[in-house]
């Protein structure tokens, strides 16, 4: 475990601060790409008759702008700070799973590159809008491979997000320094916690949606081309994710603004507890409002009316949060520095974005507003105004911590002024011409031209303001005055270590007694730092990207990618079998209410929850299709062999029994019985898969194939997804058996078996429902 330097350090690092910096640079890069696209199509809109961009190029530009900004720029920008700051704020040495943290980053980077690659494919990048509405994005209307490649890139990004989500939840929940109860967590950490909780439940369904779309595009099924599924199914699958996603984008910024206000008003945040409660309520409600993106589809009026009301009511908690932020300035000592200016900007722009959002929540108004520039203006005030300004506050706030140097305050203020003016010049005119349709590359209404030109001008001003920031931050790296540990006089833990912090964050572990932050003196011997390096996360991501790209474009590349993937996974598992990467779990940390959770078990539980959401969306698709096809859907027992399915169910249930027995024997320290139970599980799993394969073959012979009709497509997709989960489980099981042979598991150490069991039983539960809905009814 030697220390690495130069390029190797960055390719192999698992340190959360290094990874934070990687996220920072990468997200700023994607921000620049997305921004350049926007500046290009703004030119087209300023001169609608000039043909600067063809209709096709324009549609590609807006689609990639939206995808890149929402998924590869702004959220990862927040996670740059999350990675760097959160572990320090809670007094941890690193994330719970440093290696998976690196994996998150590399999956993110290469998924972004894969998406960007689609520009260079025949037919170009996707041109269907970031919302990927079907049937437009099905192959009949957009046969170009770019649409599929970007969808696969999205799948890769979902993997990155899921891994990151699990990591942050486990970290924040179980690695808090002794004494750091929930009520003492800084606002930024809370913001990230809400973000990842939203991610945990939101990303499964959209993964399912893009999965079905990819199957439609690659194998020719008809989930999204048939009128029974089609547009409505897609809008449900997309927006169930889409709405929480906008809060996922926003929540970190709210956290930053909270911390910045506290530091620069020199007063505790007003109504902190209520802000957090309101934040929690809003996060929950954000899952039950999404139909407000579908008001004009004309689906069931009761559902639309209910979601209209939930949408209106989500403004109440946000009102409480914003008013509390504002009252934090009341009777305070306001120190007007650049981070605070950006935080104030964020609040002001959020108020505009939030109020205009309320207009959209009225069905009567939205029947017209949907699809207009009003919506564009609204969500840019929320996403760019509230969120990006909040994150820029973070940039200036933590810059001295990350670099050890102070930025130039005057340039910072100038940046704020120009950015704020440019922003409003850019987006406010869109409210004035709110009746203009969005996503058009040309228009013939003369009156719209001046406002569009003003907006374009604003766009360039706004873009220019970033050059000031980049200049300021780069220059200050060299010439900035030393920042010291705590230039702002803030109270949170990241300010109680050096700037930049040492690799292990604190020489002596922090703790909180009462309200005082202190440090374990440990007899004066500082904490010894161990560096962990591995290239596997990077290689794994590269091989995944290669195989996805090859799948669409060039089969040999797919073979190479897949072979690499297998090799990397094997190496990763072998490293683990030989305990080459063991990070001891810290003791005494605050874990309530997860006192019985160890790192691994908790992580697997969170994985199970996100998988549950993925299957929830598949079950949702099943029920939607089944209702729409009522009368045509075949009676289960008429197609499937109930007895064979029943036997298979019992086999799987039995394998659950053997797993739970394995856990019990591990706990009892009975190595022999442990091995027998694991072996029995393995055999039962194989038998299940074998019978399943036999059933599939028989059905194929009977003409019941993947593409024959919707019920059959869904049967293969859902049972196939289940089988894939079983195969993943069998791979993990192989690893467990090898470890059990080496006698690793005993009364003290049975985490691996227990965690595997949780996953295996979940797969079992999924099957219980699949059996019911396909075989029995």
């Amino acid at each position, binding site marked *: 475990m030697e220390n690495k330097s130069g390029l190797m350090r960055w390719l192999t690092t698992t340190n959360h601060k290094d990874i934070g910096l990687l996220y920072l640079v990468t997200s700023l890069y994607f921000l620049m790409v997305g921004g350049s696209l926007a500046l290009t199509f703004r030119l087209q809109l300023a001169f609608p008759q000039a043909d600067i961009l063809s209709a096709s190029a324009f549609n590609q530009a807006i689609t990639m702008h939206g995808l890149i900004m929402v998924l590869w720029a702004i959220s990862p920008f927040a996670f740059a700070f999350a990675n760097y700051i959160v572990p320090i704020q809670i007094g941890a040495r690193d994330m719970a799973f440093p290696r998976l943290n690196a994996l998150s980053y590399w999956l993110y980077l290469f998924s972004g590159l894969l998406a960007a690659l689609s520009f260079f494919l025949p037919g170009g990048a996707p041109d269907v809008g970031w919302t990927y509405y079907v049937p437009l994005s099905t192959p009949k209307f957009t046969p170009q491979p770019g649409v599929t490649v970007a969808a696969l890139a999205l799948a890769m990004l979902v993997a990155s997000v899921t891994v990151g989500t699990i990591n942050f939840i486990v970290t924040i929940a179980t690695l808090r320094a002794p004494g750091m109860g929930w009520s003492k967590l800084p606002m930024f950490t809370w913001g990230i916690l809400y973000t990842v909780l939203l991610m945990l*439940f939101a990303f499964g369904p959209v993964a399912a949606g893009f999965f079905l779309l990819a199957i439609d595009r690659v194998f020719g099924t008809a989930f999204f081309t048939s009128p029974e599924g089609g547009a409505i199914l897609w809008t449900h699958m997309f927006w169930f994710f889409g709405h929480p996603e906008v809060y996922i984008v926003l929540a970190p910024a709210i956290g930053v603004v909270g911390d910045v206000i506290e530091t620069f008003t020199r007063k505790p945040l007003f109504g902190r507890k209520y802000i957090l409660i309101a934040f929690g309520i809003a996060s929950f409600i954000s*899952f039950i409002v999404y139909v407000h993106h579908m008001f004009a589809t004309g689906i*069931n009026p009761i559902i639309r009316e209910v979601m209209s009301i939930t949408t209106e009511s989500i403004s109440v908690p946000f009102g409480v949060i914003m008013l509390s932020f504002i009252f934090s300035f009341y009777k305070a000592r306001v120190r007007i520095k650049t981070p605070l200016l950006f935080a104030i900007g964020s609040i002001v722009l959020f108020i505009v974005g939030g109020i205009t959002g309320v207009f959209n929540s009225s069905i009567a108004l939205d029947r017209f507003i949907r699809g207009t520039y009003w919506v564009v203006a609204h969500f840019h005030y929320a996403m760019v105004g509230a969120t990006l300004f909040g994150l820029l506050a973070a940039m200036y706030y933590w810059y001295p911590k990350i670099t050890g140097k102070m930025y130039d305050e005057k340039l910072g203020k100038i940046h704020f002024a120009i950015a704020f003016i440019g922003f409003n010049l850019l987006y406010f005119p869109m409210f004035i011409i709110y009746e203009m349709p969005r996503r058009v590359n040309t228009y013939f209404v003369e009156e719209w031209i001046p406002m569009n030109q003003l907006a374009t001008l604003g766009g360039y001003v706004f873009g220019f303001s970033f050059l000031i920031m980049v200049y300021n931050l780069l220059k200050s790296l060299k010439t900035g005055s030393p920042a010291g540990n705590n230039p702002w006089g803030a109270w949170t833990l990241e300010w109680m270590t050096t700037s930049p912090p040492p690799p292990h964050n604190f020489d002596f572990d922090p703790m909180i007694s009462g309200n005082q932050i202190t440090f374990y003196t440990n007899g004066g011997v500082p904490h010894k730092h161990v560096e962990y390096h591995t290239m596997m996360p990077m290689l794994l991501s590269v091989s995944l990207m290669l195989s996805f790209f090859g799948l669409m474009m060039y089969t040999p590349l797919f073979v190479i990618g897949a072979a690499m993937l297998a090799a990397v996974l094997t190496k990763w598992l072998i490293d683990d079998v030989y305990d080459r990467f063991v990070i001891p779990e810290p003791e005494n940390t605050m874990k309530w209410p997860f006192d*019985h959770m160890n790192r691994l078990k908790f992580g697997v539980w969170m994985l199970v929850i996100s998988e549950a*959401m993925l299957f929830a969306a598949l079950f949702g698709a099943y029920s939607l299709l089944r209702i729409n096809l009522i009368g045509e859907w075949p009676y289960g027992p008429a197609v499937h062999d109930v007895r064979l399915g029943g036997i298979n169910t019992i086999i799987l*249930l039995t394998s*659950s*029994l053997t797993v739970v027995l394995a856990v019990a024997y591990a706990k009892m320290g009975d190595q022999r019985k442990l091995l027998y139970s694991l072996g029995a599980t393995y055999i039962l799993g194989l038998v299940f898969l074998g019978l399943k394969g036999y059933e599939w073959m028989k059905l194929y012979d009977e003409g019941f194939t993947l593409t024959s009709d919707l019920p059959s497509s869904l049967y293969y997709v859902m049972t196939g997804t289940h089988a894939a989960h079983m195969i993943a489980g069998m791979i993990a099981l192989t690893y467990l058996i090898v470890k059990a042979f080496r006698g690793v598991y005993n009364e003290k150490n049975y985490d691996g078996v227990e965690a595997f069991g949780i996953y295996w039983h979940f797969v079992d539960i999924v099957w219980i429902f699949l059996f*019911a809905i396909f075989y029995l009814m």
Partner: protein
Amino acid sequence: MAKEPINLYVGVWGLLVGLTILEIFMVLVEMPIILLITGVLLLAGVKAGFVALFYQHLKWDDVAISWFYLMALFFALFIVMVWTGGSAVCQVEI
């Protein structure tokens, strides 16, 4: 759990197998489809509940994890209800 409740695990297994056989039996006796669907889904829910409670150790583990699970269950039910309820495009009444 000082002593491992192995008998309990085996008992739960017996119950799960029994319920599965009951499900198949319900299909074989050819009852009205509505009854069959409700019955089968209910039984599947009970089976899943037993697996979660005893095999996934929710009964003994931190309650907070059960809350996560319940939340996912809530969203799953929400999805199924909204997606089916919203599936048919309803026309404005004329």
